[in-house]
């Protein structure tokens, strides 16, 4: 099993979710994160004080997939999340050794 972590632009979440749904993936976990990278942040000014906000709001999607699903999933995400503009984000893949579905105590790929 593989874990895919994708950092994307927030307004792309729905499209990514749908793209994953189309290839049969219907489990994922999402969180709000702040990203720092090439995309420039913005400056906020409050009376005399300027604050540079380097961290931009991003969405992190985490999903564990079977080895076969991996390529299709990465492609689906990367296609749906792309705008072609700086700051589109990254996808990272790593290995997962075990998975458990708490409700049923199933283990392994069937738990995903």
């Amino acid at each position, binding site marked *: 099993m593989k874990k895919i972590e994708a950092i994307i632009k927030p*307004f792309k979440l*729905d499209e990514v979710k749908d793209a994953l749904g189309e290839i049969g993936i219907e489990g994922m976990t999402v969180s709000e994160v702040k990203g720092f990278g090439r995309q420039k942040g913005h400056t906020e*000014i*409050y009376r005399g004080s300027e604050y540079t906000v380097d961290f931009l709001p991003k969405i992190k999607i985490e999903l564990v997939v079977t080895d076969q699903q991996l390529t299709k999933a990465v492609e689906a995400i990367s296609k749906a999340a792309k705008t072609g503009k700086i700051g589109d984000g990254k996808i990272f893949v790593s290995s997962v050794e075990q998975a458990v579905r708490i409700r049923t105590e199933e283990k392994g790929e069937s738990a995903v």
Partner: protein
Amino acid sequence: MKTYLLTIALITTIALGALPLRADTATNLPAPTVEQRLSALEAYINNGDPTGALPKDTNGNLTITAPTTVGVPGPGHNAWQMTSAALVLFMTLPGLALFYGGLVRRKNILSVMAQCLLITGLVTILWWLCGYSLVFHSGGKFLGGLGFAFLNNVTSAPNTDYSYWVSHNVFSMYQLMFAIITPALILGAIAERMKFSAIFLFMTLWMFVVYFPQAHMIWGIDGFMNGVWNAKAGIKAIDFAGGTVVHMTSGWSALILCIILGKRIGFGRENMAPHSMVLCMIGTGMLWVGWYGFNAGSAVGADVIAANAFMTTTLATAVASFVWPMMEWLVRGKPSVLGFCSGAVAGLVVITPACGFVTATGAVIIGVAAGLIPWFFCYKVKSWFGYDDALDTFGVHAIGGTIGAFLTGCLARNAANANLATNLKTQVTDSFFQPLVLEQLKAIGLTLVLAIVGTTVIAFIVKAIVGLRPSEEVEVAGLDLADHGEEGYHQAG
């Protein structure tokens, strides 16, 4: 500060000076009798004319020295009017800013607030320059003169065209608060997607093209549609606290502008749920409370008519705030907080033109209508047509204002307001389809035309000069950062 010399001061500065009526005649005239002074004083209680029982020459000038209680404001009436003006400002800052601000997405909350604040400053300046004068100075049927430009001649003495006992300057500030909230209402339809500079320009033009004329026609002493006070009104319509002036103009303009502007990016696809129903509900409470200044304050005096307006406003609003969520409960299975809030605001809107003219029964009928019809528009009609009236300004204010204007025609009763007997004896016959209804329909028509044509023209002018919408990137990122360089909320720190 105590006013040691006030009695003297008033005689010297105001009685002898400001009021032309008595300016040149104050000397050498016989002093008023006790009986005359008493009648001038009694008029205070009834918000009546203190010179009503005093002897006058054929030009209407007093033939006695005016009692010291003539040409001065009355404390109870002035107190209520100042309270009312503060309450109406409260409706915009922060009432409406919260009601609307809660309904937009997080990234646009400050833009709504900034727009409300901008309009407050901008309209005040226009009002001071000439706006007040164009509305409330006599002049023509459609627009007033410039005699009150820069608030010249607007002193603490009452302007008897509008009130015997409320200071003219307080009246002008009270009316300013209406001129502020009206364009601010439009913001609801165009929220989240109009450039700040475009709003600035649009609102400036709109005040001149739509608001000032409409307000003069309805409320100006020689206005074309001022059925209550202008015996020569072309359309003998009535509008107690601004059903046509405030809600119809803003609501219909909002519809046109939001259509010209186009839909928000992602409309119908993305989740555009209100970012804080909590703020929206706080705003609703403030609007309701402030609206007592709006409606009961429109009596210009703490008199019997204000008292009646207070009651009818309460009844209609509470009933509508009940009916709307009950319809939701019936149709969708759940009464929502937004339903309660929308119902309350709809009730307030619909009773506005009627509040000083209808009885308790009329108010309850209006409350039911206000709960049903705007609800149906927001719930169904909007999705049939598919325009993006972001926060339902059209559904609530345009529809509500129009129903209100119509029902005021049906439900105005002599028992509720004795002034209806002055110039509207033949219009108000105390039946549902009394002749007044026709006058109201005419006023509705004229208001519609003014709002729709005016807004269309202005919108295209503004589009040509500064453009209407921000870039897609800005809209997606939110107006707060792009237009104001700020964020509504910061988690960390």
